[in-house]
């Protein structure tokens, strides 16, 4: 399952980030790291991007990018 498939208010654990280079590093810096818990909190008015809670901060990501992040329910 990927992060973009998560329903609102659901949380899951990050398994793998299928991105390379700068994008991956950026996500890592914001707390998107294997093993971290992430929750989808709300979507924007046009449903893309969506906002996720990670390390207790709200981070917005586009769905295209969220689809490259594998997650798994606890």
């Amino acid at each position: 399952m990927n992060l973009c498939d998560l329903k609102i208010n659901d949380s899951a654990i990050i398994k793998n980030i299928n991105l390379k280079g700068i994008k991956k590093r950026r996500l890592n810096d914001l707390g998107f790291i294997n093993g971290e818990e992430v929750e989808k909190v709300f979507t924007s008015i046009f449903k893309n991007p969506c906002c996720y809670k990670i390390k207790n901060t709200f981070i917005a990501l586009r769905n295209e990018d969220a689809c490259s992040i594998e997650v798994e329910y606890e």
Partner: protein
Amino acid sequence: MNNILLCGNPNVGKSSIFNALTGSNEHTGNWTGKTVELAKSKIKGTKYTLIDLPGIYSLSSLSDEEIVARDTLLFSEYQKIIYVIDSSNLERNLNLLIQILQINPNVIICLNMIDEMEDKGICIDEEMLSDIFGVEVIKCSTKNNIGLDKLKNSLESELKSNFKFLYSLDLENKIKDIYELVDEKFQNKFIALSLLEKNNSIVKTIKDKFNIDIVDKKISNYLMNVNEEEISNDIVTKINSLSKEINGRVFKREKNKKISFLDKLFTNKITCILLMLFIIFGIFLITIVLANYPSDLLSNIFVKIENILYNLCLNYNVPKINYEPLLFGVYRVVTFIISVMFPPLVIFFFLFTYAEETGILPRIAFNFDKVCNIAGCHGKQALTVCSGFGCNACAIVGCRIIDNKRDKLLAILTNSFIPCNGRFPMLIAIISMFFVNSSNKLLVSFYLTLFVLFAILISFLTSYILSKTILKGKNGFFVLELPDYKKVKLSKILKISFIYKSLSILKKAILVSIPAGIVIYIISNVFIGGSSLYVILSNFLNPFAKLIGLDGVILLSFILGLPANEIVLPLIIMGYLNSNNVPILSDYTSMKGLLIQNGWTITTAISTILFSIMHYPCATTLSTIKSEVGYKWMIYSFIIPLITGIVFLFILNLFI
């Protein structure tokens, strides 16, 4: 050597601390990436100079701000680092701290925003934190003025962090290998790790700074067998687990973060759009209503002063040639700017700063990223558009928050469509004269909102066209933190918006308008073959101007108004009067009479407003664009809105 660096994640309050310690006026705001360049100033009552770095999440993601911060940390001379932490976000803030400690152990930790901790149910054991890192930890709140003196005193402390940790055995060995291969002055854990991660930007910095190619034959051979993805993973995992562990020991949270009521409104399509329209409309309405009183008062005072000065000149037999240019040229332009432009400027900036400090701006970028994408540009362009309402030149500097070069150019080239503060008073005046009865402030604000929405639309349409022509390419990566909403302290906002923003803009406007006033006086008083230079120029422009719904005088005023949009309207009025000087413009009725006498119709009014939205950027903005992205793009930024305006008005005037 007495430099102190202020470092930390974005939006943790670095610039607020900078302002508090140095008494200067860096812009703050509740969104990530407010500061995009280095600010320097002396700390009051000490020998130290404080340097405000842009906020960054790490030292290796390679955006422009991060490179600036990294290079300053690595290669500049400084005494200490003040590492600012947002207390409610300790865990993520620790990541960067650990990276920075690998570069320099001279750190003071500043736990900022402690005023919010109670509300959020947070508790931090600062003694334990201090023990873990072996540095001073100071609790601070710039909002309530807590801890700032203590922070100042701690600058003398000699404490150096003794925090040590090891990566995996394999990675530590690789670091040692690199140490063997590089010059002594680069034997630094951070540089070694960057090389192993094949981070080219650090290689480039070293080449630029020291003229040394650090990746010589030996190193590049060594790096051939290194898998940089694995190394990155190793580093990230290690630092993350360290900060997690430390966070677990010192940080307690009782309440979990909830979605706030405002975010519920902002994420529903209908309430969001209503709320935004309401905010734009409300800001204009309040500005127009409130600005009226001080405007009237000021212009009455200035007229009285002018009469006194005039009489003085007559009494003392000052020759006409001496006092006329000063009194009727310079004095009237300057007082016009003060009385008509300044009150709305102050009120607008106050409301604008308020909106900025609460944290609404990133929500706008979040909600409109999709729309921006359709227009071919980056979601963060919504942020720079918002800044454009304040000042286009500031917005251009702000475009640095967009990493991708192409996206940044799109934002820069289309920003001048957004009417800045210097243009609003003219828009308000024309709307009040030609569209409605000026006492109906609601309708004035309504029309103004319509024109502003039009400006935004044109700005994005142009982005769309550019993204399909000269700036083809793919949209950059979008990640954006949505910070918590902040309760704003009114006195602070008042101070920032009035003293720092409004007064400095006023100063600039006056400084340009003095020479402009003189130039205007001269060209209206140099006669060639019976008519003044002014008349000759405006007659020359007239046939062309008529094609786009203007006239020679209006067009000439826009040309002479290049230094500052604020002076366009006084120039127009002056052009119509034969008295060769700027008239007293205290009320709209007399102004309207004059304009109608000179052939203004509703079409002229619409065309003038539209041309004010779509012409070249002011001189300050142009020079900012030049220093940000170079000559070539400055020329584009001049031509694009100008051609758009001319074509648009030409077509419009064919039909009406």
